């Protein structure tokens, strides 16, 4: 009997101890580790949040490197550089390392850490890209050793690597823009880096020069000059030098543009009485006439594959954007809104999955703005508004950005959706033309 009592006591105490040791049982109806799930859907799409803190090292160079990286990634249309004032990390202590917890707190998705120094006239730049979700190990790391004068180029190169890492695409950070520089009626053709650095004059004839257009090789430019008093088409090496005559026929010889294969020039001539579009050989010999009607047809722009040409015609009363095949067949009006549309520029890649032609149009307030038209659906979307008068768009070679002239004074670059814009040249400038792809 006593044994039974003691056995019962032992068992009871044992169970009590087991419960205490293991923990309470789950509440009735729900186990302790049961998760509660619910769907969160329909995210927005926004630019990738990139933190670009000030590089460690030489303060003067650091500021320049940060500025170039920030500008490049911002105008690529893919990234939103975060405000450095919001950064919590101890940049001096971290140097090239990255503590993910600190960057998570500011909402960064990516971080670029770098260190720059100079010695013996050379720049030493060490850059690393981190993805916060992947922790403290860099996903891209590059070192550059270049002459001090090439500091911007080093930053452009790393920015291009970052874009390539995320998208597999080449970027425009090493490209140049040609434009007419100077007061109206007396402009020379000038060339600069896409972000406005390194402006240099190419023509020096003292006349009015305008409408530069790049050869696909990037080695020379077509341009229209009034050196003889009438608009003539000339060609000049990008490095400068003597212009080469392409077409000096009576009347207009203007708006020449190279075909994508560099074998033909589409140009506006008025030798037969009114403005018409012709194809010329690189030496200026007429290959064919593409338009033939009593009205004005001008401002040709090639499609990326060279099979079509967009142009302006006022044959139905007001200047509108038209397209035709490269042989002149199938001429079709594609803009049906607005009464003054001009300066078409065919996008080198689809925008939002659709072909697009940029143009400048005059709205009901008599202000010019930049628009896109889909040549297939003829749908028009607007890129600029309430930012002065904007004209003569020209695409970056990867189609991710545009440059245009503005009444606000100078040239502006905007992302292909028009949402982000930066002034790249201040002063009197007109008719910009964005050069072909060159790796920085």
């Amino acid at each position, binding site marked *: 009997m006593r044994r039974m009592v003691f056995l019962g006591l032992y068992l009871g105490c044992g169970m009590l101890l087991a419960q205490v040791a293991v923990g309470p049982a789950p509440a009735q109806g729900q186990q302790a580790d049961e*998760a509660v799930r619910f769907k969160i859907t329909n995210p927005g799409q926004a630019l990738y949040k990139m933190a670009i803190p000030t590089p460690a090292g030489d303060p003067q160079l650091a500021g320049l490197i940060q500025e170039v990286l920030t500008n490049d990634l911002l105008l690529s249309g893919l990234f939103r550089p975060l405000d450095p004032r919001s950064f919590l990390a101890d940049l001096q202590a971290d140097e090239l390392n990255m503590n993910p917890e600190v960057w998570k707190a500011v909402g960064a998705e990516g971080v670029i850490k770098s260190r720059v120094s100079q010695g013996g006239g050379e720049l030493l730049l060490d850059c690393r890209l981190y993805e916060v979700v992947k922790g403290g190990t860099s996903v891209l790391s590059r070192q550059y050793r270049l002459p001090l004068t090439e500091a911007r180029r080093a930053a452009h190169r790393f920015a291009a690597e970052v874009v390539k890492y995320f998208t597999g695409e080449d970027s425009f950070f090493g490209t140049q823009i040609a434009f007419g520089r100077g007061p109206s009626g007396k402009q020379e053709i000038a060339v600069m880096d896409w972000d406005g650095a390194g402006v240099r004059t190419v023509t020096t004839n003292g006349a009015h020069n305008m409408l530069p257009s790049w050869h696909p090789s990037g080695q020379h430019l077509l341009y229209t000059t009034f050196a003889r008093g009438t608009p003539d088409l000339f060609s000049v090496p990008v490095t400068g030098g003597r212009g080469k005559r392409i077409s000096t026929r009576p009347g207009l010889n203007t708006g020449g543009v190279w075909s994508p294969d560099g074998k033909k020039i589409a140009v506006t001539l008025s030798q037969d009485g009114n403005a018409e579009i012709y194809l010329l050989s690189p030496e200026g010999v007429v290959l064919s006439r593409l338009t033939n009607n009593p009205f004005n047809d001008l401002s040709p722009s090639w499609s990326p594959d060279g099979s079509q040409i967009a142009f302006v015609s006022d044959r139905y009363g007001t200047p509108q954007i038209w397209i035709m095949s490269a042989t002149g067949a199938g001429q079709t009006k594609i803009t049906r809104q607005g009464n003054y549309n001009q300066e078409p520029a065919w996008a080198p890649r689809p925008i939002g999955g659709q072909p697009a032609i940029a143009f400048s149009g005059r709205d009901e307030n008599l202000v010019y703005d930049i628009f896109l038209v889909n040549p297939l659906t003829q749908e028009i979307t607007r890129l600029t508004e309430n930012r002065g008068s904007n004209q003569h768009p020209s695409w970056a070679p990867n189609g991710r950005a545009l440059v245009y002239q503005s009444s606000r004074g100078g040239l502006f670059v905007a992302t292909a959706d028009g949402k982000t814009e930066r002034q790249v040249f201040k002063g009197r400038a007109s008719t910009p033309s964005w050069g072909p792809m060159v790796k920085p």
Partner: protein
Amino acid sequence: MERLWHRRPVDRASVVVGLLTVLVVNGALVGGIWLSHRRSATRPLRDTATFVDARLVRFGKPRDLSFLPHVQATPRPIKQKTTLKLARDPDQPPTKLPRTDEPDEAPDRPLPRLPEVLPNLREEPDDRATQEAAGDSSGVRGGTATEAMGDPYIRQIMAAITERWSVPTMLSPGELAKLQAVACLKIDEDGRLVEFHIVERSGNSLFDGSLVSTLGAIRELPRPYGPFAGAARRGKLCPVFTKQ
């Protein structure tokens, strides 16, 4: 008085056997309880998760009903004015006549304006800010329903996160449609997001990175209340992030 029991001398072997018996029995009890708890802990969440269906009202402009047909008065017939034909001046140059083989489709239709950016609580822009879908001005950016439904606390958590969540534009719509990830949130009594873990990754670092960026920047959420408060405090509130 007769003794009811006899006191026997202590038998060492009996004591040892007794102790061993107690240890074995209690050990079996402890082991059994521990194992049953462990099984429930290691069972995949999917098998033990409670799924809550909740929906958020879409944010947008009230629906424009002006397109609906309405009765119009019959227009009065316009009298054609008679015109006098004058003889053509032979000294004037010939005028260019417009081509009439293609009908002119409203040439004075104005060029479009930029889309209106709908004002919203969140300053950070994303493409939902310019969507002109009809909705409710008190709705949630990213909401999809015309009427709210589901547990109120869960809806508040959904709203707070959905408003802020955006994925990079580098993700194409096709890629985005295939991705799904699950993160578990731990929210304290004061509504602070104490910690979060991605428990099921999507396999795409841009998508997963957007969750880390969104949740990492959230400081405060609604204070836990209702039947799911305990799950929030225990870190078992696990939203499933997906396009649809």
